[in-house]
């Protein structure tokens, strides 16, 4: 009933014995003590607050067992700005007021960080569709989209 796992989270290796049924999100919160990743639904995996990167891609950590991340690389919101300097996306969330209660924010940042890597120049509609996996109750999404657009514009103007 116990599995031995070795998960690299934000560059730190966590070797732990865990119950086989332990979810990755619980491993992150309770074993790695990284509580920026949140749980917002029960079994349905809809809200997206627990979104992390698994080998660089956004996934919902409540829909994975910890054992499935064995020998994989996980990045959480705490790993976005390891040297203390906020990423452009984090900065834009701040300047555009892209968060209110902040509970869903970690998941949104992780999803959008991956999204912008894959789609560097998205339209507003594409951003909206990219956000489908993250529910937010506070913002009405408007400022979140403004924040993502700001990063896109900054990147585009840097290119030209």
């Amino acid at each position, binding site marked *: 009933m116990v599995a031995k796992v070795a998960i690299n989270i934000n560059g730190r290796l966590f070797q732990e014995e865990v*119950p086989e*049924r*332990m979810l990755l999100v619980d491993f992150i*919160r309770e074993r790695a*003590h*990284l*509580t*920026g*990743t*949140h*749980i*917002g*639904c*029960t*079994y*349905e995996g*809809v*809200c997206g*607050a627990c979104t992390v990167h698994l080998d660089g891609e956004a996934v919902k950590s409540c829909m994975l067992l910890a054992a499935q991340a064995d020998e994989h690389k996980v990045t*959480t*919101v*705490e790993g*976005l*700005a390891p040297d203390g300097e*906020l990423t452009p996306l*984090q900065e834009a*969330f*701040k*300047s*555009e*007021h892209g*968060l*209110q*209660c*902040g*509970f*869903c*924010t*970690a998941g949104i*940042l992780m999803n959008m960080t991956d999204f912008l890597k894959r789609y560097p120049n998205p339209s*507003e*509609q594409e*951003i*909206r*569709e990219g*956000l*489908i996996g*993250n*529910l*937010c*109750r*506070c*913002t*009405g*999404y*408007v*400022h*979140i*989209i403004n924040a993502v657009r700001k990063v896109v514009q900054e990147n585009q103007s840097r290119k030209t």
Partner: protein
Amino acid sequence: MSQRKNDDWMGTPLPRKEDRRLLTGKGKYVSDIVIPGALHAVFVRSEYAHAKILSIDTSEAEELAGVERIYTGDQIKHLIKSMPQPIVQPALPAHYPTFWPLAVDKVTFHGEPVALVIARDKYVAEDAAELVFVDYEELEPVLDPEEALKPESAIIHEKDGTNEIFSMTFTGGDTEASQAKNAAEVEKIFQNAPIVVKDRFKTHRTGVTPMEPRAILCDWDDSDGLLAYITTQRPHIDRLALSDILDISAEKVQVIAPRDQGGGFGVKAPFYRENIIIAHAARDLKQPVRWVESRYESLMNVGQERDQINDMEIAADLEGNMLALRNFGLADNGVGTTGVYWGFVMPFLGAIELPNGYKWPKADIRLKVATTNKACLTPSRAFGHFPTRFAIERCIDMVAHKIGMEPSAFRRKNLVADLPYTSITNEYFDSGDFLKVWDTLMEKANLPDFRVQQKNALSEGKYIGIGFGCGVELSGVASELFVPMENQPGYGAATVRLDPRGKVQVFGGDAPGGQGHETTTAQVVASEFGISPEDVIITTGNTGSTPFGSGSVGARMGSYFISAVAEACRELKTKIAKFLAHDLQLEASVEHFEFKNGEVVYLGDDSQRSSFMSIVERIIMFPINMPEGETGGLDATTFFEAAKPMICFNADCCVVEVSLETGDFKILKWITAEDVGNVINPLIVNGQMHGAIVQGISNTVFEEFVYDEQGQQLTADFEHYKMANAADVPNIDLNYATTPCPHTPLGTRGIGEGRPSSVPGALTNAVCDALKPFEIEITTLPLRPDAIWQKIQDATQ
């Protein structure tokens, strides 16, 4: 952070102080707080809507390794006082149900707590909860509020002998005779009015679901008592309630609502039964106990509101004057076992706010609230008046159609033009300019242009429509209304404490959940003292260090709390000025000094000045050679109470395109006009408006709590309870038409709480406008494609 001219931070779009920690995962919500050795609690909840509990077998569960204790209703009913208790009971006459944290004898809704499992591991606690076997004998569920009030209905709370938890007439005075006289007068107007529209407006069960579910972490110490971290909008009320109900002497109860809370929206404002039993368990086991609500439990138990039937009638003349309003409301209260609100307080306020910002010469407004075997209504942003505003804004359009008038013109003609004004239900509108707001909206909406576009679109087979709505929103709740409604004071309270280094600590007893109190407060304090917002630290929600506050409810921030902060700052400024005048040997008082750029400057001679820090340090650390009668120290607590209730006002316009084939519609535009008073931080105000409007849209169209004929709740996860995602909602064009509030020191108003209420009417009006060729009037929510399509079918066949 740049220094601003005059250090006036008012109106500045300052990025929030809260954001850095929240953006880096360093926020600390209740479920993130760790106390070593904390046990995990899991509730066993009722599978039935209404059933007798025959027996509960916990033996198998207790044998599971890691299980510490299992509680049932029978075990705790002699140890814990039953509800209601005065601290969480409004001063309104009603049939308050008696209940304990765990069901005793019978269950009254699907999801009610029946037993509590405490274990060392949360997975084990869930395993054990599955092994608690409850034997039920089903009783007839009461699910329809109209049926519930019939004499033949089964009774849910037997001791009351009725399912009518509350009823009230809001017009015609306080006596039955005067109300009857009023009703007769209203009836006479209806009999003679050239235009009468009467319909039944139904609003489904929906509400606001914060992304962070409820949670509580309790620790117990025999000498210090109870320390409880709770997701709550009202820590001070929770503290008193826990003290009273668990018989713990009040000085031994401390409640902390962490500064990081994942949204409240009213859902975290009640006093919940779960908190009582978790606190009891911590005391009983002398160990920390944690309960983190699952989304499943959350959707089964809280966030359910709206759910009203309003039988409304409006009388008008052919010139477009409103003559009379009659409304018989019926609210489906659910089971009523939730402290502070008991379900019916929301429809109560909904009825008071029903007349909206219109002049009604006469009205007859009554409300009945029925208990049913569903989860108790819990407050949700647009508290109680989401349904009544839907009804009135929809009905007004129907009247305008009958008169043959533009609904927007009909509205403008009847809006209250001169404030202050006392509404037909005795709601006091203190200040503002409704017509300015309305005209701002109409200018942006450009109705004449739209009507041309609409005609052109129609010739191409496209159905576009425009809809309007407006709303008066309470700006905080004055004690005058708050005491009867919730048995709590309405004042705002704040402590402002200066330290010898010129920094400021502010303490507030309310408990925000994302509204940006830290930033807004810092801006106000910085503006008052002429310092930087970075120099200001705010503590909220800790009953151990903050003055009493009734909580973060009803838009109290921009109205009451921030006013208390400003007044406390001004009190300290007076003292600082007195000391400085004394030290500089000037005959001067506070109005002769300017606080700016970290200095206090004498206006008569700007060479006479002191750095803010030195004068503050001098008063706190060197209390010698003082002005006569003064003492050292700089610390002020103030309680702000406005003489009368205050309001703010807003209006919505939306444009939709409806597909005749599927009834599906797309929101093409959403335009607003807002009077929010003086703005402290426009980013935050914009964010509040966006969030409120999108919540309103999501409630109107997507979200619905569904119960089947047996009272089974079928929408207990986000796959079935459908919240709008980013691709489902529009951008919002916000416009401001502000008038400063004359009753607050900063001219600010409290905003955001009631903001969703004008949304369902405006949106439904737009859909009906698009379908005007078919003369479709929609009176039932949710506003769903299948229902719209059916209406089109009915109209075309």
